[in-house]
């Protein structure tokens, strides 16, 4: 049987109108002249338009192509060549792509979950203090951008704050180079930046009922500084968002699914860090002969009772009730003297009032 076809030899763009002879091999001839002979076993499908059977041969030039348009001849060739069953193009089956992709996702998540905490733990000690201070300065500017630059400066209040922090840092043996400050915002929180800067937000002072509550919060934040949690967190967050962002690209869907996942992962680290900072605070208050329990009381007042929830793993801090219970365990009988006099306490509460 002989069939008309189009042949390109892959060496030149010349178009050959050829005749195919289905002998022992597929003989390609033009005007009686032999151009090529393709063994049936080496013939593969190449990507072509609909209704055109485009073929290549593994022994011919890589771009040599044979195009058959006649449907009957296409069937005939299909019978002779065993290698035509597979579709042209993709080198890997879709099922394998899906399988290996999911494998890759699992392994990346495992690296983020198990590998990065260890990585950050090991790398943090090698971050020089000077670099940490620089990160702190950048974070400081961001804090001001976020909450405004209104630092509270009533002189008696600043004095009281310095006294309180001084007592705590001396006892903890921390060398603080940056003075703590109060920011005028209603959010009840406190933040320790890398490099040792502590910010107390005014909302927290408003909710506090005793110097020990504020001292507890400050001790907790000093715990973060002592443990260099800021740097560790930066390394963990940076690396995980880097991995997730770079590997998955900015692709439909993937980012949505992974944002939830990443929130869970990073908050898991921070929950561990928070628990350790609480321990540090309990220990420090104990050294001063004061109870750490007021810290727990203040937390409960701020967050209100939180119901337990299977999704607690999403929360960045342990539940307040758990923290209160943990701090109560460290309860000591109060032996030390008050950390602030009543007058100093009033001055601290009024630190944001204009004279």
């Amino acid at each position: 049987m002989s069939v008309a076809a189009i042949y390109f030899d892959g060496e030149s763009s010349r178009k050959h109108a050829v005749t195919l002879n289905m002998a022992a091999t597929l003989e390609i001839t033009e005007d009686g002249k032999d151009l090529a002979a393709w063994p049936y076993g080496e013939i593969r499908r190449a990507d072509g338009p609909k209704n055109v059977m485009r073929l290549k041969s593994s022994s011919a030039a890589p771009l040599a192509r044979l195009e058959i348009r006649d449907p009957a001849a296409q069937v005939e060739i299909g019978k002779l060549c065993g290698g035509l069953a597979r579709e042209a193009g993709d080198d890997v089956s879709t099922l394998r792509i899906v399988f290996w992709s999911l494998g890759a996702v699992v392994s990346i998540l495992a690296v983020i979950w198990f590998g990065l905490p260890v990585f950050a733990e090991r790398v943090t000690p090698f971050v020089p203090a000077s670099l940490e201070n620089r990160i702190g300065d950048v974070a400081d500017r961001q804090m001001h951008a976020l909450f405004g630059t209104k630092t509270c400066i009533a002189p008696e209040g600043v004095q009281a704050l310095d006294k309180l922090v001084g007592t705590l840092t001396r006892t903890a043996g921390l060398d603080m180079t940056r003075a703590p400050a109060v920011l005028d915002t209603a959010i009840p929180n406190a933040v320790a930046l890398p490099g040792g800067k502590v910010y107390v937000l005014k909302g927290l002072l408003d909710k506090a009922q005793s110097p020990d509550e504020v001292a507890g919060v400050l001790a907790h934040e000093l715990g973060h500084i002592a443990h260099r949690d800021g740097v560790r967190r930066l390394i963990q967050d940076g690396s995980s968002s880097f991995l997730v962002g770079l590997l998955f690209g900015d692709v439909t869907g993937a980012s949505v699914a992974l944002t939830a996942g990443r929130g869970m992962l990073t908050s898991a680290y921070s929950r561990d860090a928070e628990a350790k900072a609480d321990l540090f605070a309990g220990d420090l208050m104990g050294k001063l002969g004061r109870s750490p329990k007021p810290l727990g009381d203040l937390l409960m007042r701020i967050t209100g009772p939180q119901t337990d929830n299977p999704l607690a793993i999403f929360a960045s801090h342990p539940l307040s009730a758990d923290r209160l219970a943990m701090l109560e365990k460290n309860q000591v009988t109060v032996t030390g003297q008050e950390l602030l006099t009543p007058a100093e306490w009033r001055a601290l509460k009024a630190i944001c009032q204009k004279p």
Partner: protein
Amino acid sequence: MNEIVTSLPVSAPAERRAKAAFTGQNGDFRRLITRGTLLELATCGFYRFWLAARTRRHLWTHTELEGDAFEYTGTGRELLIGFLFALAILVPFYLAYFLVGLEVERLKAFASLPLVVFIYGFSQFAVYRARRYRLNRTTWRGIRFWMDGSGIAYACRAFGWAFLVGLTLGLAHPWREASLERYKMRHTHYGDLPGRFEATGGSFFKRGWWIWALSLVPVAGYGLIIGSAAYAGMHAKTGEMTPAATALVGVGILTGLLSFLLIPFLYGAYKATEWKWWLEGIRFGELRVASDLRRGQMIGNYWKLIGVGALVTTIIGIVDICGAFLAQHLGVDFAAWGAQMKAGHIPPLMIAAYLAAYLPLILAISIVNRIYLVQRIWKMVVNSVTVCHIEAADAVVAKGDLVSALGEGLADSLDVAAF
């Protein structure tokens, strides 16, 4: 040499012209993209390499010139490997970038600008190498296209031009396009047939200056909206809003909004002008390209994109609202979710609901985008093309080696890859 050439008998073959044609079916592409987008979701994005390869294969194999279809021989696996190599280069780079950025950011808030510039230059390098890879996998009549030239030289040019364009408020854009395209086409070959680019910045400017001028209308419209709103805000405070002033503000905002309707027209006209100018500047030896692409076609396509996008969004929005009502009817307490959020918890049902409502929308929008911004434009452009002096490509000899997909990998990681 010259003497010999001129002394030969003149036997120039008659000029042959061929119309290009796109033979693909819209339905086939829609199915390919829908399936690919769903697989991208199922594989957390990894399928994107294979989808890109499949998309290009579909487009090229259904593009015909003188009855012979093109072929795209690139594979998803190549793209994946290129991407992994790019990662190996970029990871240390990003780390260094972070540390240097930290250092200079401390000195001055905007001191990291040179780094942004560096990233821009790097992305231009990637753009060049990505084009080189894609062209290298494109073949016609058993001969591949290929590119030489240097990505670094290209990046330097692109950077210099970006500076000039900024300096001239965009007026230098046509000359930038012409100069960069000249560099790319000068290093482009089909077998042993060298390419070049003959269109000039001046001709692009002559065709498109009025679009640039008209684009000031929506900009002015935006200013009008902001101005009207500011005026209303100022007078609402002092309680001096007379009915006449209210009407004035209303007219101002409405006129501003109406001017936004110009944007799809202007963008469509600009794209059509750019495509036609680019096509008509292409040369391969004697071979040249003509195009009868009309601005109306391109504008129509953008309006279709907007229309279909709005329709899909509306339908999914209605389904979502019905779903929410049904869920409330079945006893889901939405108010409780807000309370739980405040307490620092995210209800699991809320995440599920969010995904159920949001995912179909972004998937649908991404499918619509790919159909109208990739396949429909490809089809329109291909069908507009007539190749003159196609006999110049009759006996081209194969030349040019395979190159790796590293450039494409870099472009992908830097998020500058075209479709």
